[in-house]
C-alpha cells in the first residue's frame, strides 16, 4: 500500500543528498523530454524534422533508433517497395548499384562456392522472401504448396536446371547404391520406386523436397543463433503481455481529460479550478475527494493524493519513491521514464513546449509541469497496477514482487529455430538454381557461411537497400536533368540582352514552381526569381482589420519591429463605422456560438435553429456560390479600398505604440540590400521596369492544420504584408540612395509592387497599385494579363492531382474548382501543400527555366558571380534554405512512412481540443505530424539540394554552419553541386564530393507544360519545354473575354 511504503517524510535526509536526488530526477525527465514531439500549438504550424532528437547521428541509424524507441516504421514496407519495383519506379540497375556500393570490395566474394554475395543479395531483393515465426513456417511448409511447387517468381532456367540435375543426382546415387536422406526415401516410396513413371510434377515435388531437407539438415547442425529476449521495462508492458489488460487505457483516460482542461487556452466556459497552483496541486484538489462514482481502481488515489500534498514532498521525490515501489532498477530508469512519458507523448510533448516556450500561447504552464505530470502518472499507474494484480492473482503482495513473478512467467524463445534459417536458404536455392547435388557436397563451414550471409541481409536491411535505390532513381534523374537542361540553355539559346518586361519575385516554395513556369510560358519576356518568402522583412504585423500583432518571419527569428496597416484620412470615418459594425456582428456571432451551448441560449437558438438549414445546405452543396454571396453581402463590412502601411519609424527605439512603429531608413536599406544580394540583383541592367514581390499563403475551411499550408518562411502565416512592406521600402528614394552606398544601383524607372498569391484558390492580389506612376501603366497591364492566364493554367496543373476533378477539365473550370475547393467545408484536401517535394535547386533561374519540375522542387535564386570569396551570400541563403526545406521534406517523409506514429493519422475523426491541437474522437493522445490525406500522394524520399557552386564552397559552409554540416554529413539531405558552364557535377557522399561521370542524354522535349502533364495523375519525369513559335496572344484574349480579370483585381 502507498501509506506503508517508504515515503521519506519521517526520515530526515541531508539536504545535499536530497538535492542531488532531486537533480538526478530532473535531469532524467529533461533527457526524456527530448524524445517528445516538439510540435507547438496547431495555430502556428512549423514543419520540422520529426526525428530532430536523433539529428546528430546518420539518417539510417536514426530511423532504426526511432523504430526501437517509438515502434515506428523506418521505411516503407517491403511489399510497398516491391510494388514500386513492379511499377518500375525502382529499377534493378539502381538496386544493383546500391548493393555493390554497400558491399564494396566484398561484392564478388563467392559464398560456399555457390554464388557471389552480390548475387545472393540481389535475389533476396528481387523475390519476395517468406519468413515468419516457426509456427507460421510449419503451416507454409505443410499446408501450402511450398514443397510441391517452385516459388512463383523462380525463373524457368533455375527450375529446369534443378530438375535436370536432381534426375542425374538420384541416378548417380542409385548407381553407386547409396541411400538418400530418410525423408526422401519415404517420399520416393510414396511416389513409386520406378522413376521412369514419374511425371513432371512428381519430379518437381521430389526436387523441392530434396532441397528443403538438405537445407534443413545443413542448418540444423550449426550452432544456434541467439534471439534477443523480450524485454519489458514498463510494468504495464509486462502485465499487458501476461494478462492482456492494458492499464494505459484507464490511466490515459484520466490524464487526457485533465491535460485537456489544464492546457485549455480558453475553449471551455468554466476554467479548471486552482489551475494557477500548478498541475499537481490542481489535480489533487480536483481528485482528492473520494466518491462512489470513481472507477474501482481509482478509489485509493484520493487518499494517496491528499497524503502527498500534506506530506510536503516535492514531485521529484514522489517520482523517486514511485520508481522504487514499481521496482525500476537504476539502470532502467531513463528508459522507463522515456517510455512512460511517450505513452501519452502528444500531451506530454505539448506540456513540454508550453513550459519551455512560454511566449507561444496566452496561457503558458509553469516550469516543472512535466515533472508533476510524470509524478501524477506514476501514482495512477501504481494504483492501476495494484488493482490489476489484485483482480488477476487475488494476492496482495507489493507491485515489485508481483512484477517479478510476472516477469518469470514470460517464456523467452531465445534462439531462432533452424526452420527459419533453412527456409530462407531453401528459397534462395530455388531462385539461384542451386541443385541438390551441390548442396549435398557442402561442408558444415560452408553451410555456416551461407546461413550467415542470408542472416546478414534481414528485412530491415533489404528495406534500406530498396529505399536507397528508390531515391537514387529520382535524384540521378534530377541531377542529370538539371545538367542537361543547363547545357542546352548554354549552347542552344542565345542569351537575350533585352531588359525583361517585368520581374516576379516569389517564395522558394515548391508550389510556386509551377506558377512561375506557367507565367514564363505565358509571357516569355518576363523573368522570375525566388527568395525566402518573408523578403528579409521580419516584423510584427497588424492589419487594419486585425486586433493583434502577429510575427511574420521564420519561426527561429524574433522580430524587433512593428508594422501596422492604416486607412488614410479619407476613409477613417467609414473604417471606424465598419469596425464598429463588424465588432457588433461578431459579438452577436460569438454569442450565438457560445450561448447556443448553454441552457437558455440553447432554447432560443434551438427554436430559431431551422434557419441554420439555409447556410448548412448552401455551404455543403454550393460552396463557391455561397462564398461569393457572402462576399457580395459582406462588402459593407470590408476594409476601405485604400490602406497604407505605417512603415517608417520616427522615434529611435522600435515598439508597438505610435511613433515607435516601423523601421528607420537605415534599417529599411539594410533589408533591401540583404534581399537584393540574395537575389543577385546588383547592377542597374539587372532590374526591369517593374518588380513584383509576391508573398504567399493559403486559406481553407474546416482545416485545423490551415497554418501548415501557409508560408513556412513566415512561420505558418500569410506573407502578403512582407511583400508589400518590401516593395514600399525599395520604392523609397532615401532608401535607394542608402542602398546605392552598398554598390547596388536600382535604376530610377524601376518600381516595386507587392502582391499576394493564395496557393489554395490561386487568387492573386496586388497592393498599392495606385502609387504606380502612369509610365508603368502598360507594363502592369501586361503583367496582370499574363498572371491571370498563369494562375488559370496553374490551377489546371494542380487539378490533375485531385481525384474528384476530371482529367479533361478546362483551365476555366479548373480555376472555378480550386476556388470552390478552398471554400468547401467538406473538403479534406483543400490543396496538397508540399506533398511530392523532393528537390531544391539553388542557382540562377535561367538554368532551370523551361525545365518541367512537376511542382516538386524548391527553387532558390543565387548567382555565384555576385557572391564574395567567402561565399557569405550562399551561406546566408543556405542557412535558411537547408534547415527549412529539410524540415519540410523530413516531416513529410516520416508522416508518410508511418502515418500512425509519426503522422497524425486520418483527418476524418480529428477534433480540436483546448485550442492547441487535435485528437482522434474525444479521448485520444494529441496527434502531431501531418495527417494522412495530406501525404497520400507523397513519395517519401529525402530532399536533394542541387546548388550552383563548387565543392570547396559547400565544404567550407558545412564547417561554418553546424546545422548544415550535420544535415548533409548525416545524409538527412542529399547534396550535389553543379557548374552550368562546364556541365560538371559533384555529389556529396557524406565526407567529400565525388565527380559525377556519366554521359548526359538529351532531355525529351515538349512544347508546353500542359503537354508534359496532360492526362496523368502520377508523378511526371523531367522535360525541357521548348517554346513553340509565337502565336500566344490568341488564347490569351479568348480567356480574358470570359472573365475580366477575376480575382486578380487590384486592392
Amino acid at each position, binding site marked *: 500500500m502507498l501509506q506503508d511504503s517508504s515515503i521519506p517524510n519521517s526520515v530526515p535526509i541531508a539536504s545535499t543528498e536530497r538535492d542531488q536526488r532531486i537533480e538526478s530526477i530532473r535531469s532524467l525527465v529533461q533527457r526524456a523530454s527530448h524524445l517528445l514531439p516538439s510540435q507547438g500549438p496547431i495555430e502556428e504550424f512549423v514543419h520540422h524534422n520529426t526525428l530532430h532528437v536523433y539529428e546528430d547521428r546518420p539518417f539510417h541509424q536514426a530511423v532504426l533508433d526511432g523504430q526501437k524507441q517509438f515502434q515506428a516504421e523506418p521505411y516503407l514496407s517491403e511489399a510497398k517497395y516491391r510494388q514500386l519495383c513492379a511499377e518500375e519506379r525502382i529499377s534493378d540497375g539502381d538496386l544493383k548499384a546500391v548493393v555493390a556500393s554497400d558491399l564494396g570490395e566484398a561484392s564478388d566474394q563467392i559464398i560456399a562456392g555457390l554464388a557471389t554475395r552480390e548475387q545472393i543479395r540481389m535475389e533476396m531483393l528481387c523475390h519476395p522472401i517468406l519468413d515468419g515465426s516457426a509456427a507460421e513456417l510449419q503451416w507454409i511448409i505443410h499446408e501450402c504448396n511450398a514443397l510441391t511447387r517452385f516459388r512463383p517468381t523462380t525463373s524457368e532456367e533455375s527450375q529446369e536446371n534443378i530438375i535436370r540435375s536432381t534426375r542425374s543426382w538420384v541416378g548417380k546415387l542409385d548407381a553407386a547404391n547409396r541411400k538418400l536422406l530418410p525423408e526422401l526415401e519415404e517420399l520416393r516410396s510414396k511416389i513409386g520406386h520406378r522413376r521412369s513413371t514419374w511425371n513432371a510434377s512428381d519430379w518437381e515435388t521430389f526436387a523441392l523436397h530434396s532441397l528443403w531437407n538438405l537445407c534443413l539438415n545443413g542448418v540444423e547442425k550449426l550452432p544456434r543463433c541467439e534471439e534477443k529476449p523480450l524485454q519489458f521495462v514498463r510494468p504495464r508492458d509486462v502485465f499487458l503481455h501476461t494478462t492482456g489488460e492494458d492499464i494505459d487505457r484507464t490511466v490515459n483516460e484520466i490524464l487526457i481529460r485533465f491535460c485537456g482542461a489544464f492546457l485549455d487556452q480558453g475553449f471551455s466556459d468554466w476554467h479548471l479550478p486552482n489551475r494557477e497552483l500548478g498541475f499537481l496541486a490542481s489535480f489533487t484538489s480536483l481528485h482528492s475527494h473520494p466518491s462512489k462514482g470513481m472507477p474501482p481502481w481509482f478509489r485509493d488515489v484520493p487518499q494517496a493524493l491528499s497524503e502527498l500534498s500534506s506530506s510536503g514532498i516535492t514531485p521529484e521525490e514522489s517520482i523517486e519513491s514511485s520508481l522504487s515501489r514499481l521496482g525500476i532498477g537504476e539502470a532502467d530508469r531513463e528508459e522507463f521514464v522515456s517510455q512512460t512519458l511517450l505513452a501519452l507523448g502528444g500531451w506530454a510533448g505539448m506540456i513540454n513546449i508550453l513550459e519551455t516556450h512560454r511566449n507561444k500561447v496566452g496561457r503558458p504552464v509553469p516550469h516543472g509541469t512535466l515533472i508533476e505530470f510524470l509524478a501524477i502518472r506514476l501514482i495512477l499507474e501504481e494504483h492501476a497496477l495494484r488493482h490489476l494484480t489484485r483482480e488477476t492473482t487475488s494476492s496482495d503482495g507489493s507491485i515489485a514482487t508481483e512484477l517479478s513473478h510476472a516477469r518469470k512467467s514470460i517464456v523467452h524463445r531465445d534462439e531462432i529455430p533452424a526452420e527459419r534459417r533453412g527456409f530462407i536458404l531453401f528459397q534462395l536455392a530455388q531462385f539461384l538454381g542451386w541443385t541438390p547435388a551441390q548442396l549435398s557436397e557442402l561442408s558444415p563451414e560452408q553451410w555456416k557461411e551461407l546461413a550467415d550471409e542470408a542472416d546478414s541481409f534481414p528485412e530491415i536491411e533489404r528495406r534500406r537497400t530498396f529505399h536507397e535505390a528508390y531515391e537514387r532513381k529520382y535524384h540521378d534523374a534530377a541531377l542529370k536533368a538539371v545538367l542537361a537542361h543547363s547545357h542546352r540553355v548554354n549552347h542552344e539559346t542565345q542569351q537575350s540582352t533585352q531588359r525583361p518586361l517585368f520581374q516576379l519575385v516569389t517564395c522558394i516554395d515548391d508550389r510556386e514552381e509551377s506558377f512561375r513556369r506557367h507565367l514564363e510560358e505565358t509571357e516569355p519576356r518576363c523573368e522570375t526569381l525566388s527568395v525566402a518568402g518573408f523578403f528579409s522583412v521580419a516584423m510584427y504585423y497588424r492589419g487594419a482589420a486585425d486586433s493583434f500583432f502577429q510575427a511574420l518571419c521564420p519561426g527561429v527569428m524574433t522580430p524587433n519591429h512593428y508594422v501596422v496597416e492604416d486607412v488614410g484620412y479619407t476613409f477613417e470615418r467609414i473604417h471606424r463605422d465598419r469596425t464598429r459594425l463588424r465588432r457588433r456582428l461578431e459579438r452577436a456571432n460569438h454569442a450565438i456560438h457560445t450561448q447556443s451551448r*448553454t441552457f437558455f441560449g440553447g*432554447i432560443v437558438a434551438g*427554436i430559431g435553429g431551422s434557419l441554420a438549414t439555409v447556410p448548412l*445546405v448552401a455551404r455543403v452543396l454550393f460552396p463557391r456560390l455561397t462564398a461569393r454571396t457572402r462576399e457580395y453581402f459582406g462588402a459593407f463590412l470590408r476594409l476601405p479600398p485604400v490602406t497604407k502601411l505605417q512603415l517608417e519609424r520616427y522615434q529611435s527605439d522600435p515598439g508597438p505604440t505610435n511613433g515607435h512603429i516601423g523601421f528607420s531608413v537605415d534599417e529599411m536599406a539594410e533589408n533591401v540590400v540583404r534581399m537584393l544580394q540574395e537575389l543577385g540583383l546588383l547592377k542597374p541592367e539587372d532590374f526591369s521596369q517593374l518588380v513584383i514581390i509576391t508573398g504567399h499563403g493559403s486559406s481553407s475551411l474546416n482545416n485545423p492544420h490551415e497554418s501548415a499550408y501557409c508560408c513556412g518562411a513566415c512561420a505558418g502565416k500569410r506573407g502578403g504584408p512582407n511583400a508589400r512592406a518590401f516593395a514600399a521600402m525599395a520604392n523609397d528614394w532615401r532608401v535607394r540612395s542608402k542602398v546605392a552606398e552598398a554598390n547596388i544601383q536600382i535604376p530610377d524607372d524601376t518600381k516595386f509592387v507587392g502582391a499576394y498569391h493564395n496557393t489554395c484558390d490561386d487568387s492573386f492580389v496586388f497592393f498599392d497599385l495606385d502609387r504606380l506612376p502612369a509610365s508603368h501603366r502598360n507594363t502592369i497591364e501586361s503583367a496582370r494579363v499574363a498572371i491571370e492566364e498563369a494562375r488559370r493554367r496553374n490551377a489546371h496543373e494542380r487539378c490533375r492531382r485531385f481525384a474528384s476533378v476530371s482529367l479533361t477539365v478546362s483551365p476555366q473550370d479548373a480555376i472555378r474548382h480550386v476556388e470552390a475547393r478552398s471554400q468547401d467545408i467538406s473538403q479534406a484536401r483543400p490543396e496538397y501543400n508540399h506533398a511530392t517535394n523532393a528537390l531544391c535547386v539553388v542557382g540562377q533561374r535561367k538554368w532551370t527555366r523551361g525545365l518541367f519540375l512537376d511542382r516538386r522542387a524548391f527553387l532558390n535564386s543565387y548567382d555565384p558571380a555576385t557572391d564574395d570569396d567567402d561565399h557569405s551570400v550562399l551561406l546566408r541563403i543556405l542557412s535558411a534554405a537547408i534547415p527549412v526545406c529539410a524540415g519540410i521534406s523530413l516531416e513529410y517523409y516520416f508522416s508518410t512512412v508511418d502515418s500512425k506514429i509519426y503522422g497524425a493519422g486520418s483527418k476524418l475523426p480529428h477534433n480540436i481540443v483546448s485550442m492547441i491541437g487535435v485528437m482522434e474522437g474525444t479521448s485520444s493522445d494529441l496527434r502531431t505530424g501531418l495527417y494522412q490525406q495530406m501525404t497520400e500522394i507523397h513519395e517519401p524520399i529525402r530532399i536533394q539540394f542541387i546548388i550552383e557552386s563548387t565543392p570547396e564552397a559547400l565544404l567550407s559552409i558545412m564547417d561554418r554552419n553546424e546545422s548544415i554540416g550535420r544535415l548533409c554529413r548525416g545524409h538527412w539531405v542529399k547534396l550535389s553541386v553543379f557548374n552550368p558552364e562546364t556541365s560538371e557535377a559533384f555529389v556529396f557522399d557524406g565526407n567529400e564530393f565525388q565527380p559525377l561521370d556519366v554521359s548526359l542524354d538529351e532531355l525529351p522535349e515538349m512544347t508546353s507544360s500542359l503537354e508534359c502533364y496532360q492526362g496523368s495523375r502520377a508523378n511526371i519525369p523531367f522535360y525541357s519545354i521548348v517554346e513553340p513559335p509565337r502565336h500566344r496572344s490568341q488564347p490569351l484574349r479568348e480567356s480574358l473575354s470570359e472573365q475580366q480579370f477575376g480575382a486578380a483585381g487590384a486592392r
Partner: protein
Amino acid sequence: MNTSTILYLLGVAVVLCPTMLVVGLGLPLLFGRPLTESTQTRLAKGCAYLGLTSAVAILITMLITGIREVPIEFGNWVEVHEEGFHFHLKLVFDRLSVPFAILSYVLCGTAGAFANIYLQGDRGYDRFFILYAFFMLGIIVSTVAGTIETLFFGWELVGLSSALLVAYFHERPGPVRNGLRIWSIYRFSDAAFLVAALLLHHLTGKGDFDILMGEGTWPNGTAVITSWQALPVGLLLLLAAAGKSGMVPFSGWLPRAMEGPTPSSAVFYGALSIHLGTYLLLRISPLLNASPTLSFAVVVLGAISAISGSLMARVQNDVKNSLAYASLTQIGVITVEIGLGLRYIALIHMIGHACLRTLQLLRAPSFLHDHKAMENAVGIRLNTNDCAVPKTTSPLQLVVYRFAYERGYLDTLIDSFLVQPFVKLFRFFNECERSWTEALSGTKPDEQRQPSADLELVEEMV
C-alpha cells in the same frame, strides 16, 4: 387518380427510396463488386432527392386538402393466431411524422453530400455508405411508423448502423470499444421498448398507435387505456427514449459517439439519432395525457438531463464533446416541453435544434479559424475574458465543477449498477447450467473447461 391514391403512392415512395438505396448499395457489395464512388454518390443523391420531394409533396397535399392523417397499410407480415401475435406493418403520415421525415431527408441528404467529398478515397467509403443507407432507412421507417412493431424495426436499424458508424475506424481499439458500449446501452433500452410493446399488445390487443391513442389525430388523441395501464407502458418507453437520446443516466455514450468521421457524428448523433427518443415520446403523447404521473416523470427526467447537460457542456474543452453535451441540454429541455404538453413547441424546437447542431458539428474543424476572425473583429482576446469562475474557488464551485468534469460519474454508476449485476447474473446462470450438466452427464467438475475467454473479452469491451 384521386387524392388518396396520390398520397398512397407518395407515402410508399418515401419509404421505398431508402430501401432502394440499401438494395442498390448493398447487393453489389454482397457480390463483391462494389460500385464506384461516383455511382454510389449518384444513387444516394437520387434517393434523397426523390424521398424529400415525396415527403414535401405529401405535406403540400395535406395542407391543401386539409387531411390530417394518412395511414398506409401493408398488412400483417407475421401472424400467430393462437398467441394473438401479429407483426403489422403500417405507416402513418400526420403532422408529426411528415415534418420529421422532411427533416431526416434534408439532413441525411446534406450529410451524404458532405461525406461524399470528405471521405473520398478513404478505405471505408463503401462501408460508410451502406451504413448510411441503413441509417436512413431506419430513421425514415421509425419516423412514419404507424404501429409499435414497425417503429421497433426502424429503431433497431438506427441503433445497429449508428453503433457500427461509431466503430468506423475499426483498426483502432478505441472506436470499437466505444461502438460496443453504445450498442450495449441501445440493447438495454431496446429491451425496455420491447417489453413495452408486448405490454401494449396485451392491454389493447394491437400495437397500432391510432387505436392505442384512440380518437383524434396527433396531437389531439386520447388514450383508450386507463391511467394505471398507461404508467408502466409509458415508463418503459421513457426508459427506451432515455437510452436512445442519451439522457441521464445514459449520457455517458454521447462523447463516445464522436469517434466516427465528422459527418456521421454530426448528423447521426448531433441531429437525428439523438432526437429519436424525444420523437418517440411525442408519438406516445396521448399516454402522457392519460397519466399525470407519467408526465411528471418525463418532466423530471428532462429537467435533470437539461441541467446536467448544461453543467457538463461548460467544462468540456474540445469542440465535439461540448457540442454533444449542449445537445443533451436541449434534448432535456425538449423532453420537459413534451412533459408539459407543449407538443408543437417541442416539435419546432427539435427540428430547429437538429439543424443548428448539424451545422455546428460540420463546421467544428473550423473552430480556430472562426475564433481568430471573431477575436480580430471584436478586438479583445476572447479567451482571457474569464468571469465564469473566479480565481479563488469556493468549495461549492469545486463540487459543481467536479460533478460536471466527471460527467456526473454516470459511466461508473452504469458499470456498477447495471453492467456488473448483469454480468454476475449471467455468470450465475452459466454456473447453474454447468452444474446441471455435470449432474446429468456425471462428469467431474474439474474436467470442465475454464469459463470461456470470449466472455471475458466481451466484458472487457463493455
